[in-house]
């Protein structure tokens, strides 16, 4: 008998329940916890573990309730582990999790769940749910619990992150700024910024600011510093909106997103908010950009420093950029919350598979409502070619790009040295920023290519595991791609002139 179904004596029809006959043999459950797949194992990957007589949830597991305004039917439910990992699960799994309290046996849980469901659920099935579905996720305490529960590893995520404002500090800031989200304040800000923009465009003041920049490039340093300040304030907006909606924002920090230095705010707790509150969290950053613009307008009124008008224009451009839905900017989360589907990138593979129409529909797309499915499919059909072309272009021109970036780094360093010698410290600072950015771009482009190659190799190895013909095909294709790229780079002289 399979050990995973061992439960408390006297609970099942025969004391220790037997494994249902429809279940195939057990195997390694760890294979299920891959970022690209649903987190629960199939029946073919049932772990062999002992289910306690009275199972209990792992310490600190938080049952968050239904994912509100979901694009799925029926809507999924959310659970948060003590390490902060949020798990979306079906109603039945959630129902069983809510009934687990360290006192109830599997039979009692089954009885209560049956009453709630209106359908008959057996004690053996409850043990199966615990052993095969909940335990591998690190939600159940006791023997068999994974030492390192699986965590999400999303594609195109922020890397090399550091903390600027810890969770406590972010919540203090958010609490202080909360009144800014009261509707009279929002209305006043939006109307005021519209007036500022109209004035800026109608009076051509922007051209004057640009003219000043051309006459004195050192003022670009001011634009840079204020642009960074605007970005930091933007993140305070997300944290404040999250807090205003009733969730607790996490830390605010900085990291590297693709090749860009980036601020971030952890608003994972907003998963449990309503759609409106989630959207407010998404838009909170842009709203704070508007407040920043107002601040710049006021400062301009006080100082007549025309460069501030350029800062206003740059902030608008940053806001537009934030609306891009194809990378993890605000536009991505806005789209995600409008359609009620979290983690759109995780839908790419299942959507493409469902288009092929082979096999059973992946649970990540099976329950999508019609509107959500159309929206997600449209997004996938846009994002896949876009990212493929971008990454493909990066690959084809990788040495050439990095040669140019390296030359730029050297050139900027030389210019910085010259500027320091001439005591032009503002210029030198700009050049130093240029050195850092060019060097960062080199590292970032290599990081993207190495990361994607690593993922492709892992997928290839998984696809060809225990299948020699597939493994050979994978090796041949990989070698052909590498050889083609090397030949292309060499024939175009991309390795010369460093």
């Amino acid at each position, binding site marked *: 008998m399979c050990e995973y179904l061992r439960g408390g004596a006297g609970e099942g029809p025969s004391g220790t329940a037997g494994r249902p006959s429809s279940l195939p043999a057990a195997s390694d459950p760890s294979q299920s916890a891959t970022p690209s797949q649903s987190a629960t194992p199939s029946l073919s990957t049932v772990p062999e573990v002992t289910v306690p007589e009275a199972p209990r949830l792992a310490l600190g597991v938080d049952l968050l309730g239904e994912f509100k305004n979901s694009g799925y039917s029926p809507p999924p439910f959310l659970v948060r582990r003590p390490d902060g990992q949020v798990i979306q*699960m079906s109603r039945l799994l959630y129902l069983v999790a809510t009934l687990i309290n360290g006192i109830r046996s599997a039979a009692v849980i089954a009885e209560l769940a049956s009453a709630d469901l209106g359908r008959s659920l057996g004690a053996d099935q409850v043990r199966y749910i615990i052993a095969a*579905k909940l335990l591998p996720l690190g939600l159940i305490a006791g023997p068999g619990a994974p030492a390192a529960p699986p965590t999400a590893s999303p594609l195109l995520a922020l890397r090399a992150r550091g903390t600027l404002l810890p969770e406590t500090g972010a919540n203090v800031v958010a609490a202080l700024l909360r009144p800014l989200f009261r509707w009279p304040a929002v209305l006043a800000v939006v109307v005021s910024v519209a007036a500022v923009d109209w004035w800026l465009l109608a009076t051509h003041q922007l051209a004057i600011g640009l003219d000043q920049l051309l006459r004195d490039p050192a003022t670009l340093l001011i634009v840079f510093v204020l642009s960074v300040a605007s970005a930091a304030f933007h993140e305070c907006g997300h944290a404040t909106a999250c807090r205003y909606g009733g969730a607790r924002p996490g830390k605010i920090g900085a990291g590297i997103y693709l090749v860009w230095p980036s601020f971030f705010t952890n608003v994972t707790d907003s998963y449990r908010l309503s759609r409106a509150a989630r959207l407010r969290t998404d838009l909170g950053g842009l709203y704070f950009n508007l407040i920043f613009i107002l601040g710049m307008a006021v400062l301009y009124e006080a100082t007549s420093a025309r460069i501030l008008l350029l800062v206003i224009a740059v902030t608008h*451009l940053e806001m537009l950029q934030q609306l891009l839905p194809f990378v993890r900017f605000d536009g991505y989360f806005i789209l995600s919350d409008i359609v009620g589907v979290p983690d759109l990138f995780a839908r790419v593979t299942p959507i493409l598979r469902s288009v092929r129409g082979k096999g059973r529909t992946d649970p990540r797309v099976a329950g999508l409502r019609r509107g959500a499915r159309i929206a997600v499919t449209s997004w996938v059909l846009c994002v896949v070619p876009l990212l493929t072309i971008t990454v493909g272009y990066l690959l084809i021109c990788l040495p*050439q790009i990095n040669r140019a970036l390296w030359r730029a780094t050297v*050139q900027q360093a030389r210019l910085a040295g010259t500027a320091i010698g001439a005591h032009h410290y503002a210029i030198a600072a700009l050049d130093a920023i240029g050195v850092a950015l060019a060097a960062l771009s080199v590292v970032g482009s290599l990081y993207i290519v190495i990361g994607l190659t690593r993922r492709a190799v892992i997928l290839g190895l998984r696809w060809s595991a225990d299948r020699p013909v597939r493994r050979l095909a994978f090796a041949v294709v990989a070698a052909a791609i590498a050889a083609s790229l090397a030949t292309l780079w060499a024939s175009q002289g991309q390795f010369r002139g460093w």
Partner: protein
Amino acid sequence: MSASPVTMEELELESAELLPNRETLCCGGSYHPGNSFTQVGYGNTAQSGLVNVSALNGSFDNILSLGSGNIL
């Protein structure tokens, strides 16, 4: 009338999914000097994009020029 039993096939379809952290991002450097005012190659126009490089009609030499040698 007894309730219909939940089948093992239905249990198999019960699923859970690890959600990534919601981390709102703001690239404060997107329009700072290094990215906003970038001349690419010989005669290419300035650009900023998903990946801040371009090879429209030339090489990538002198990809960045700012500070002492701003090109707008």
